[in-house]
């Protein structure tokens, strides 16, 4: 082989490899991407049947139920227009609370119950999953203060010490 042909082979090999990797990534992407729906979209039947998706909203206050001693938990996720009952078997994350935002992964059963295989926790108890905040905003213009979480609108102004705001109402002053 002449050096030129060899170089051509090398370049061809790399191009083939890169396109192969690209094609594989694209197909993996198509098959494994998960879409987000809120309870209103679920109620409107926008979720393709049998597809795994992310459900987000607020956990309705007083909706968490357990059969005593069972790992199976049931609660209702709402966007204040529509509700979706959720069932999950396992340890709920530390920051799971009634009246707080939640995102769950799973599938819809024919009877309308969402069977979650994963319930997401966040680092910060003030933190609201952005999709949930946006969906709530979309449905109601403003976030509902009575929902329980202190800072429901996600694109919040510079962080203020929200949870203990009642104890000492502070205001960050510009220098």
């Amino acid at each position, binding site marked *: 082989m002449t050096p030129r042909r060899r170089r051509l082979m090398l370049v061809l090999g*790399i191009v083939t490899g890169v396109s192969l990797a690209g094609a594989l990534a694209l197909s993996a992407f198509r098959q494994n*991407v*998960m879409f987000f729906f809120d309870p209103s979209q679920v109620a409107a039947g926008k979720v393709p049947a049998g597809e795994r998706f992310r459900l987000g909203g607020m956990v309705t206050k007083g909706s968490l139920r357990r059969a005593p001693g*069972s790992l199976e938990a049931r609660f209702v996720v709402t966007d204040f227009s529509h509700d979706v009952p959720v069932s999950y078997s396992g340890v709920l994350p530390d920051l799971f609370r009634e009246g707080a935002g939640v995102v769950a992964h799973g599938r819809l059963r024919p009877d309308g119950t969402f069977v979650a295989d994963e319930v997401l926790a966040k680092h910060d108890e003030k933190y609201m999953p952005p999709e949930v905040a946006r969906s709530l905003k979309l449905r109601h213009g403003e976030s509902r203060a009575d929902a329980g979480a202190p800072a429901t609108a996600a694109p919040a102004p510079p962080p203020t010490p929200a949870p203990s705001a009642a104890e*000492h109402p502070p205001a960050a002053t510009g220098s």
Partner: protein
Amino acid sequence: MLPEFGHFALILALLLAALQAFFGIAGPALRRDRWIAAVIPAVTGQAVMVATAVACLIAAFVGFDFSVAYVAQNSNTSLPLFYRVAALWGAHEGSLLLWIMLLALWSVAVAIGARNLPRHFGARVLGVLGVVSFGFLLFTLATSNPFLRLDPAAADGNDLNPILQDPGLVVHPPILYTGYVGFAVAFAFAGAAMLEGRLDQHWARWTRPWTTAAWCFLSCGIALGSFWAYYELGWGGFWFWDPVENSSFMPWLVGTALVHSLAATDKRGLFKSWTLLLAILAFSFSMLGTFLVRSGVLVSVHSFAADPARGIFILAFLILMVGGSLALYAWRAPLLKSSAGFELGARESFLLFNNVLLVIAAATVFAGTLAPLISDSLKLGTLSVGPPYFNPTFMVSMLPLLALLSVGIHANWKRGRLEDSQRTLLYTFVVAAVLGCGLAFGVYSHGKVLTPVAATLGFWIVLSSLVDPIDRWRRGMSVSRAVLGMTVAHIGLATAVIGLTTVQSFTVEEDLALSAGGTANVGGYEFRFLGVKPVDGPNYSAVGGTVVVTQHGAPVGVFEPQKRQYWVKHTVKSETAIKIHHGSNILLALGDDLGGGRWSVRVQIRPLVSFVWLAALIMAIGGALAASDRRYRTARVTSEGSEGLSARQAG
């Protein structure tokens, strides 16, 4: 008074950074010697000012100065001293200050090292670092000033996020950031070479130790973060392909490619413009990481309350820096021709494959990380991309990389004949296959298809890397630190591969509902729950569970996981209990009171997961060995010609 002093010091640092950038870049261009001489004082002055600002903020934390907004948000009178100091980087503003301080420290280190560099070149490197520092200082002062006052002052602080109240906070962010910011040095060397329009093998030799050092810190930082998430978050996973993890992993992948392409540039004067591009990319990914984490545009476990103004500033800064350096690259790169040729089977080809595969891996991670953002802004729906995408696509580029690595280390520079090492490669492969299958089918059972394949590749790397150094050592020849470092780092990679393969294939997880005195069997272990009792902490109260674990009647250990309630934020946090038994990590997390006297308990048994973190440490040790090789220390300007020539012949 002190916070204002710190604020003022930060403003002075900004001015000094501007001077450093101006003198460092304009001085050599206009050939003003006095300007060049002013660069190093500017670097030192900036470092002193930044250190002063950091000291002022620490003083505010230690002294409970709740009139400072940042302190009031991230501290509390009940917070132990240890965490009050570390709370400095517990949130956005302070972590930027940490970033700036580390950049100042790297700049001082470069200034000390620059004494061995040509005057103009050294000044340019520091000038580019000044530009970066200026940008970050401006960002901090304009959008994220940690010294803002609170009026009226808070009676008590809002406390540090309980998730962060852990020794992990003390070590993980500084080490990760040291790595992140360290790529700014490689970037600055690239910028200086482009400004100069000249890039020779000396350039590669000066750049290599800095890049390797940054890479070592980044490796350790990522592993520490993974370890922290594993024991702290209570979910028990060690890698979630979360946007924030990805944004530290992408610079690592590109940085690894850079470390290897620098080797080719150093030894053979090859891949010059490619190396420059990688240096720009590695730092761009570091800055993109900041953008992703801090702007709050992506859903992440690390997303704290975010401010859109910050995102826009970072985006503008990112476009200016990356766009500017790429424009400079487009203009200057054609000046840098690599003349040397090489054959298909030569080491250069393998380094090229390494680079292509690592960049593909970084690109697939990049695509998966940004896809939600792009789909969202194009109104294609809110989607998320998780492990089912990342795992297979990442494997596609990693498996060939691992296979080629074992062959590539036996290839010679320039000459493409592998016949001499055919026998070695075959023997090592056979032994590796036996070991790999033994691990997959013997030690653990029920493996997946990829389990023996990946395990074999891991063992092959270990054996194949060891052949040459052992051979040289047996013949009484010396092994240079560079070669030893490379070998150690490659063995580190193999350790990671073996650990990841095992843990991905043989992990057992189960959530249990246990009543006091009840038992359950998971993965060959018996878990006996003895019940819960109250536990008191300094700023929390907790319930502690006791679980006795045995295997076939033999005791394994007593686990005491806790569920803590922090007083100030009313946050609940699980404290996991972890023990290592025969190489497997057994993790227990206490769940909820299920009623009826039962508690939920999460059990995870992850074999060889410690190998994954250990691997990063081994890689970092390898990198440190390689970076401390004599070749880099003696690379003085005065011995220009002869050094380069002899190195080329030796290499």
